[in-house]
């Protein structure tokens, strides 16, 4: 366990390296484009507005309700899915570096999470614009969004580590993971509103909607979205997220203890 913790803290000390590489990844993606990383912001705005208009029409919900809901949900989802999908390839993609430079494996994961934090920050611009167009009833409770986002990041790190190690050994897990994540997008209340279905006059619909409680992603989306939109915050979601954080990290530490050193052999 000592070596596992040394890996995590040693990787953390190389902040200059992964911080630089994370920025580099973003600049790289938009190199030679005129707008550069602003494209992150624009594509998020376009997606959220298009989905907002589409589903507001389909569900018969007013746009000023659904658009903010979709937007914030989508920003959180982009972070979650990025950490999981890219996490399952993180060591495979860095094969050259892993085999040539003795660095803690956590460096690659920190770089990945940092990159998605930067994406997240770019997307917050869309959120800020949305607040101007559709003002939300924000109170001081909106500050809860800060610990919520921090929890999101802490979870992103263990998920990427775990998915990375396991799918380096079993290569089939990468496509499996990616299909599941895609499916989970529809099962998570991002384009649809959970409360509306729970309170549906049709008892069959309400009953089925309750199953969404078993979806861990729902709780992560809720703890961030509720404060950001000034909605009522439920303790239940926080408890679930905290439990997942602790259990997830314990599981990841156990897996790292056994298999961390094997990653260089498996890539």
């Amino acid at each position, binding site marked *: 366990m000592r070596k596992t913790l040394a890996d995590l803290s040693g990787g953390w000390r190389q902040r200059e390296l992964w911080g630089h590489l994370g920025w*580099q990844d973003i600049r790289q993606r938009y*190199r030679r484009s005129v707008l550069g990383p602003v494209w992150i912001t624009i594509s998020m705005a376009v997606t959220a507005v298009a989905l907002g208009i589409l589903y507001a029409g389909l569900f018969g919900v007013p746009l000023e309700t659904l658009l903010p809901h979709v937007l914030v949900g989508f920003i959180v989802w982009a972070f979650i899915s990025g950490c999981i999908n890219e996490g399952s390839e993180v060591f495979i993609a860095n094969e*050259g570096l892993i*085999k*040539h*430079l*003795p660095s803690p494996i956590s460096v690659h994961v920190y770089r990945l999470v940092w990159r998605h934090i930067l994406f997240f920050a770019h997307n917050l611009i869309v959120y800020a614009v949305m607040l101007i167009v559709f003002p939300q009833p924000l109170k001081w409770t909106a500050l809860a969004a800060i610990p919520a986002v921090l929890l999101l990041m802490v979870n992103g790190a263990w998920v990427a580590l775990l998915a990375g190690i396991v799918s380096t050994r079993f290569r089939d897990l990468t496509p499996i993971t990616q299909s599941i994540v895609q499916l989970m997008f529809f099962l998570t209340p991002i384009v649809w509103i959970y409360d509306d279905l729970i309170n549906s006059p049709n008892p069959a619909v309400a009953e089925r909607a309750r199953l969404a409680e078993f979806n861990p992603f729902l709780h992560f989306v809720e703890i961030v979205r509720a404060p950001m939109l000034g909605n009522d915050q439920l303790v239940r979601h926080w408890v679930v997220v905290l439990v997942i954080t602790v259990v997830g990290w314990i599981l990841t530490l156990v897996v790292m203890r056994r298999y961390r050193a094997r990653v260089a052999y498996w890539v």
Partner: protein
Amino acid sequence: MVSITTRDASVDFPIFDAKSRSLKKAVLGVVGGNISSDTKVPIIEALRDINVDLQHGARVGLVGHNGAGKSTLLRLLAGIYEPTRGTAVVEGRVAPVFDLGVGMDPEISGYENIMIRGLFLGMTRKQMEKRVDDIADFTELGDFLSMPLRTYSTGMRVRLALGVVTSIDPEILLLDEGIGAVDAAFLEKARDRLSDLVDRAGLLVFASHSDEFLKRLCTSAIWMEHGQIKQQGPLKAVLRAYKGPEAVLDEGHGAA
């Protein structure tokens, strides 16, 4: 204190072919209760029972035929592969120079690549900023340094990589050969810098087929064969055993 110590260290590679690596096979293997030889992963013993004890000031050459385990041994000494059996303890900051191209990004400029490569080798951003001018001087690339790396010729890339690598202050320097593809005049310049680099390093392990380089840089040697250490000791004795009488002949010329 800088040191590398290994005790009976072995490195075994599992070779997963497409089938045995898949989850399907692992799951079906368990379900069917069929854990016979066909579900077992074949293993290559790349290194076996390696015992080395390298202290500050050691200048070790690695010799042996292709596939004898020189590169794997370097990676064991770098801490990249932790031994599957036995132990390996590496004390000190390791700068491995195995492949000049790794960590280089073709889409970004020479300057940015200098920075990134330096960070990878364990330098800080500040330390690298101080060295950038010196590296630019050495590489003689001039205005090309602000061009993307993909516009460089192979030789220019090697210059850049060598420039960065030889500018650092490593505690443990691990060099793999294959530093070529540069014009003769530049190579002479690079040699001086390489020698300087080696002098700064606390500990050197250098894998090479070139007797001349080995004699210039090393004082002792390890001879690898079939993943095991065949002999280790003073450079001349090992070279003589490895190469036969011709190594002695070379030496005679060198002395004359």
